[in-house]
């Protein structure tokens, strides 16, 4: 309905026929003069109201999350007071302040600043995820395009997908002989499934209309891939990437706890061994924050590449 009315308006403007003249000029004038004459009187009164309006809206947006965090801090403080060994918000805040005063120090492989730990975790995720994208996206395209491959690989994927990526860690240790690539390997495994499945689904859901256009224009396979399939699948691919990154960030903490080295997961375990519980709580917040930023960044990219195909 809205599309029809839209097109009507647009076509009118095109022919230059003003079908809907803006409200007649004569009645517009009195209201205008009324406005100007009343302005000095009116302006002083509704000014606080005008200011209160956006302020109220801002409060409605900001207040609930602030209250939520306050509640969290409150519960945490109560738990900390009643439970031995759990530091309260203030203690954690002080620990964080000293921790983040120098995030990039390095005293040998087992004692590095939190900045280095986060960066090396992100590096592992990046490498594992990159390999997964390099394998998963083309594989997804093939599975989506060729029914035979889909039928052949679907049962395998269905079988392996529910397996925790950590179960693959020993295989990684066995093959790569070192802890670091083994952790990257688990990231690869957990990232690849959403990438394959979403890409394949995107390819299968390319609207038949677009494929008909390709057939009528008799486009080459390369043109079909670059001009129709890829742009059409891109939003699905980005969803796959977002899910992959999310899972990868979940898994890296667990993987690093098992493999050791430098990394936020290992750091959590190390601080547990040192019984620095406030550092563990800091790590929880840091991991959450990094995950949130990754997710938001990818959502931002996805929004940029989304196109309303139904319009």
């Amino acid at each position, binding site marked *: 309905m809205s599309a*029809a009315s839209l097109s009507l308006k647009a*076509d009118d403007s095109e022919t230059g026929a003003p079908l809907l003249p803006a409200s007649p000029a004569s009645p517009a004038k009195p209201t205008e003069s009324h406005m100007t004459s009343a302005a000095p009187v009116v302006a002083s009164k509704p000014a606080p109201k005008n200011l209160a309006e956006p302020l109220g809206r801002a409060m409605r947006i900001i207040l609930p999350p602030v209250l939520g965090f306050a509640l969290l801090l409150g519960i945490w403080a109560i738990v900390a007071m009643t439970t031995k060994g759990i530091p309260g918000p203030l203690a954690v805040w002080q620990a964080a302040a000293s921790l983040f005063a120098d995030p990039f120090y390095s005293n040998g492989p087992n004692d590095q600043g939190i900045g280095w730990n986060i960066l090396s975790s992100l590096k592992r995720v990046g490498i594992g995820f990159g390999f997964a994208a390099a394998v998963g996206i083309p594989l997804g395209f093939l599975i989506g395009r060729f029914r035979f491959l889909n039928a052949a690989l679907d049962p395998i994927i269905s079988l392996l997908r529910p397996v925790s990526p950590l179960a693959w860690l020993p295989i990684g240790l066995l093959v790569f002989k070192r802890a670091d690539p083994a952790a990257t390997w688990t990231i690869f495994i957990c990232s690849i499934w959403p990438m394959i499945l979403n890409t394949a689904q995107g390819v299968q859901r390319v609207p038949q209309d677009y494929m008909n256009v390709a057939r*009528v*224009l*008799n486009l080459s396979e390369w043109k079909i891939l670059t001009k129709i399939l890829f742009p059409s699948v891109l939003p699905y691919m980005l969803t796959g990437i977002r899910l992959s990154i999310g899972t990868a960030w979940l898994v890296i903490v667990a993987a690093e706890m098992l493999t050791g080295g430098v990394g936020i997961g290992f750091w959590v375990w190390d601080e547990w061994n040192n019984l620095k519980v406030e550092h563990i709580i800091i790590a929880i917040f840091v991991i959450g924050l990094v995950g949130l930023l990754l997710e938001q960044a990818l959502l931002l990219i996805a929004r940029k590449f989304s196109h309303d195909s139904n319009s």
Partner: protein
Amino acid sequence: MKPLVQIQNVGMSFETKKGRFVALRDINLQINEGEVVSLIGHSGCGKSTLLNLIAGLTLPTDGALICNGREIAGPGPERAVVFQNHSLLPWLTCFDNVYLGVERVFGQKEGKDKLRARTQAAIEMVHMGHAATKYPGEISGGMKQRIGIARAFAMEPKILLMDEPFGALDALTRAALQDELIGVMQKTGATVVMVTHDVDEAVLLSDRVVMLTNGPAATIGEILDVRLDKPRDRLTLATDAEYTRCRAAIIEFLYQKQVRKAA
């Protein structure tokens, strides 16, 4: 007049769960060069199926279709299609949408400048020069269909196939686009086959109106010759005796001879 498309004893049936469904049978039709032919009939009578057969998007189960002396074995740019829902690629600008077809047809013989000039000319022919750099999502439904028509004409097809090209548009926009199409057809002398369910549209635009009987197993019921001079003007036609005769003949066919069963 040279026959451009010959449809010989064509039948189309589909295998369904309930068995064989015959959509079309015994279709014989010849479309001459420069002719504008409308296919009209109640919905579900297989008029779009027939158009898809000419396009080569589907192949007939019986009989044969011949275009320009060759059997139609698949779709190709010599038989351009204007789809009902315009089917513009939303990630390409209007210009690039048209260019995609132009490049495919003329890319091997002509340079980039020539291709761009062709694209621009086609877009200006449908009076969309101002929107060439816009994306389909940014323009109205009527404008999108103009670009769809420009894309088809820009390929200089032997025959232009239109599947209810204005079906999704409101009445005023539809009239504007019909007039536009009359102008473009006049300029290019194109051969056109158009599916429609609009009686006035069929009479206004065509040289012949092919009326299909109700499905299943639909076939050609009657063919009406529209003997009106071109270019046609909807205002003067409204009171024209021939126009009224054609209109009456189609309405009689659709609502008396081929009464549609209650859906």
